[in-house]
């Protein structure tokens, strides 16, 4: 299929037929309830390595995941082999597993609320994106690599990858859900470093996902500029100094240290399993001046989707409104445990039981005096550390985070003075959010999905190697 455009009708063409066949086989094998979730499609990708073409890859395939329930007992199988024998094995195995599992009253399938056909992605797939051929994908990868290198002669682009993906999703259940959708996207990523004589700066990388080919050139330009700026800025790094006080976080670092723990703690599964620090905080002020919402209706986000992994329609959900925790995220299982309804946050693919997660997060300030943008935030910091990525670990239960500050900069007089390495930051996400952090009005989508601000956080422990 080289030279041919990506096309979701390849191996996935009869995916809905195979899904229905698997559902029938599950019933025949003894399942009282069954759900088949399938994805399939085609992709073309090209990878530039150190400025030259590395590999060109053409993929085609589909996978079905079968969840069966027998009197509340769970069994699950997945397979990418769609012949009759493989589907029969998948059905028999899932039923056998279910018969071995203990019953759980909360195990139930979705019931199939109506999905707004106007929100399906398929009818709006960009025809130009779906027609990209190998030569065009290669040229976009070559251009992304060259554009990044062209920013500065000291930049070495380790990898620049562009992929065009066309996919189809199907969901069938014995409870009556039968939904299909199609999607197409262009993904791009760059990983680079800069070398100046003996000085090797730290790596930096970035990625982006988009659904409209018309946006691709501008997105590639932004991505290459951002990575180039970061890796050149990483040269001539000095060891950081130790202090306790304010630290500025770029959107990626803000996500690792703060947004990740927050979203983990608002998962109803974490609440029900006793590992959420926010379990008793609904209705309380947990992040003054900040609103966090999930908006899968926003097609500009790569996370946009009309229905979740269980077929529940998705919708805009306010999680934290002006600092106050408003809602936990539910899938069908946690909703059954809580005696409530799913918020449409069943997540995951066909190779596992539905999980739980946000789709397209947006974080925004509600504070009247919030800084406009990154520059204003650094001026507000005045003197201190600016962390652009956090290479560390976060304990989702306690909210403790600690890690090495990457692509870090030392700020004096509100401006970047030099790169910093060998410096670690630590704190507790929930404590710091509750005490109040400052975020910018300007926001960006660093990966094409979540819409995120820059943040200024007081009270961070900074440990430097100097």
């Amino acid at each position, binding site marked *: 299929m*080289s*030279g041919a455009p990506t096309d979701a009708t390849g191996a996935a063409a009869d995916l809905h037929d195979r899904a229905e066949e698997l559902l029938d086989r599950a019933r025949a094998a003894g399942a009282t309830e069954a759900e088949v979730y399938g994805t399939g499609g085609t992709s073309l990708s*090209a990878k530039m*390595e150190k400025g*030259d*073409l590395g*590999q*060109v*890859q*053409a993929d*085609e*395939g*589909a*996978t079905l995941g079968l969840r069966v329930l027998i009197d509340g007992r*769970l069994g*699950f*199988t*997945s*397979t*990418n*082999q769609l012949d009759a024998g493989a589907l029969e094995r*998948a059905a028999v195995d*899932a039923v*056998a*597993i279910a018969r*071995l599992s*203990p019953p*759980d009253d909360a195990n139930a399938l979705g019931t199939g609320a109506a999905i707004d056909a106007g929100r399906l992605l398929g009818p709006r797939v960009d025809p130009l994106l779906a027609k990209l051929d*190998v*030569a065009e994908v*290669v040229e976009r990868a*070559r251009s992304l690599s060259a554009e990044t290198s062209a920013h500065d002669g000291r930049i*070495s682009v*380790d990898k620049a990858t562009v992929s065009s993906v066309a996919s189809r999703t199907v969901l069938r259940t014995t409870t009556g859900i039968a939904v299909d959708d199609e999607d197409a996207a262009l993904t791009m990523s760059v990983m680079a*470093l800069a070398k100046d004589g003996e000085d*090797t700066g*730290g790596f930096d990388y970035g990625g982006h996902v988009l659904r409209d080919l018309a946006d691709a050139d501008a997105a590639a330009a932004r991505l290459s500029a951002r990575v180039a700026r970061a890796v050149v800025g990483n040269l001539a790094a000095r060891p950081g100094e130790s202090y306790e006080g304010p630290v500025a976080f770029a959107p990626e670092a803000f996500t690792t240290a703060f947004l990740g723990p927050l979203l983990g703690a608002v998962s109803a599964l974490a609440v029900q399993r*006793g*590992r959420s*620090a926010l379990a008793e905080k609904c209705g309380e002020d947990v992040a003054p001046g900040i609103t966090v919402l999930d908006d899968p209706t926003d097609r500009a986000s790569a996370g946009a989707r009309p229905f979740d992994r269980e077929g529940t329609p998705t919708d805009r959900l306010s999680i934290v409104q002006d600092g106050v925790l408003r809602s936990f995220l539910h899938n069908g299982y946690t909703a059954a445990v809580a005696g409530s309804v799913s918020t449409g946050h069943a997540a995951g693919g066909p190779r*596992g*039981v539905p999980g739980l997660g946000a789709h397209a997060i947006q974080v925004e300030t509600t504070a009247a005096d919030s800084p406009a943008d990154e520059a204003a935030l650094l001026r507000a910091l005045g003197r201190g550390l600016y962390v652009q990525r956090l*290479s*560390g*670990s976060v*304990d989702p*239960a*306690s909210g*403790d985070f*600690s890690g*090495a500050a*990457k692509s870090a900069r030392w700020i004096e007089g509100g401006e970047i003075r030099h790169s910093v*390495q*060998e410096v*670690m*930051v*630590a704190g507790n996400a929930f404590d710091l959010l509750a005490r109040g952090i400052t975020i910018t009005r300007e926001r960006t989508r660093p990966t094409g999905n979540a819409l995120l601000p820059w943040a200024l956080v007081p009270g961070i*422990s900074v*440990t430097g*190697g100097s």
Partner: protein
Amino acid sequence: MSSDPRPILLEALARDGSDDLVELRYHAKRSRSVAVEKGRVDQAKVAEHSGVGVRVLADGTHGFATTDRLEVTAVLRAIQTARAAARASAAARRSKLPRPPATQLADGIFETEGYAELESADLEGRIRLVLDMEERARLSSARIVSASSAYTEIFEEKGIVTSDGARAWTKVARPEFRVGAVAQEGAELQRGARSVGVTGAWDCLFGRASSEELGDQAAGMAVDLLSAGYAEGGKRKVILSPAIVGLLTHEAIGHTVEADFVEAGSCARDRIGTRVASELVTLRDSGTSDHESGAGGVLQVDDEGVPAGQTTIIEDGVLESYLHDRHTAARFDVQPTGNARAWEYDDEPLIRMRNTYIAPGESDLDEMIAGIDDGLILDGPRNGQADANGEFMFGTLQAWSIEDGKRGPLRRGVNISGMAFEVLSTVDAVSKDFRWDLGSGYCGKGQPAKVDAGGPWVSCEVLVGGRS
């Protein structure tokens, strides 16, 4: 699982009949998993993902295509697709990729211990184990508010056939077991966890500690951490446990010596033959389970068909070798080291580690502790990352103070950082013990890879992230 896949691959190769270098890799992955949290079964599944990955070197360019069908016509079509992709994009490749020189390639059947035993076991016992261990951890203390347990076993079967002579059929089984617990006191939550993973069977998995002991240790860790304070940050003298040494060798050194990173400009570039560590440090990456059985990353043949042997990366402190696939080995004018690995059939082979370790030394752990006035003992691997410039970070679950030569109170886990070769140069003691202890871990480099790492107890100096 399936019968020998090589005849189908060989027939497709014969029918193609081209002079291009064609590499065919049938890769069937079947996993069985059970996961339980707080008494509820979250996952009970069998997953199968199999197909053939085809790489063709045509016009000095690699094309890669896949098919999920192990059938001659489907494989032949994938060969043609990969070749067409290579040719369609060859104009964009400035420096044509030469055919790698002839090298010893694997021919035969390679099966690791435990495959047949695990494959014949039923799932019921696995489900029972996970349910029992979760319950045991959850009920072990009134302060445990939640516990979890999971078991996964992955069966991998590959047929690797290349137009220049590889004819390998490999079978590997890797079981893993995890148990975790969350303890609470007031608003304070702390987590404990233990996990094991091996290449082998059930006896090997629980050879060092039983599932009950692992559950008790995880619960005890969570409860003990509730009353633990934070460690003081800064440049600290530390003794790293074998698990943390494993993280150090993997994150701080292993990635920087992967030849693709070296070519990109990692800190190991142009350092072969130079001193990069204390003379107490000898560091290897091996496809076999050296020093102790059961390493989780055992590999007999890599995904280019190269036998996966043992590579000495650092010997007595001097950098001796990078890790290679066939193509980087040719560019560096050395033999391939058997490090080309792909996670699934539709992933391209990348240079990845296998089992990475520091070789045991001659010191005694108690004497090492006695020789430190003010320091930390670090154990319990969490996550880790490394940068091209050698700066690494990784987290530990636990830390203990060393005060006046004695092991002091438990502290909460810390994150440590440093520049790889600088830290290795501060190594001043290496114990005579040895343990593989990263077998439930996976390496991420665009695609996962099952790896293990370990070593002895090692004394060195690192930057510790602290909190007041």
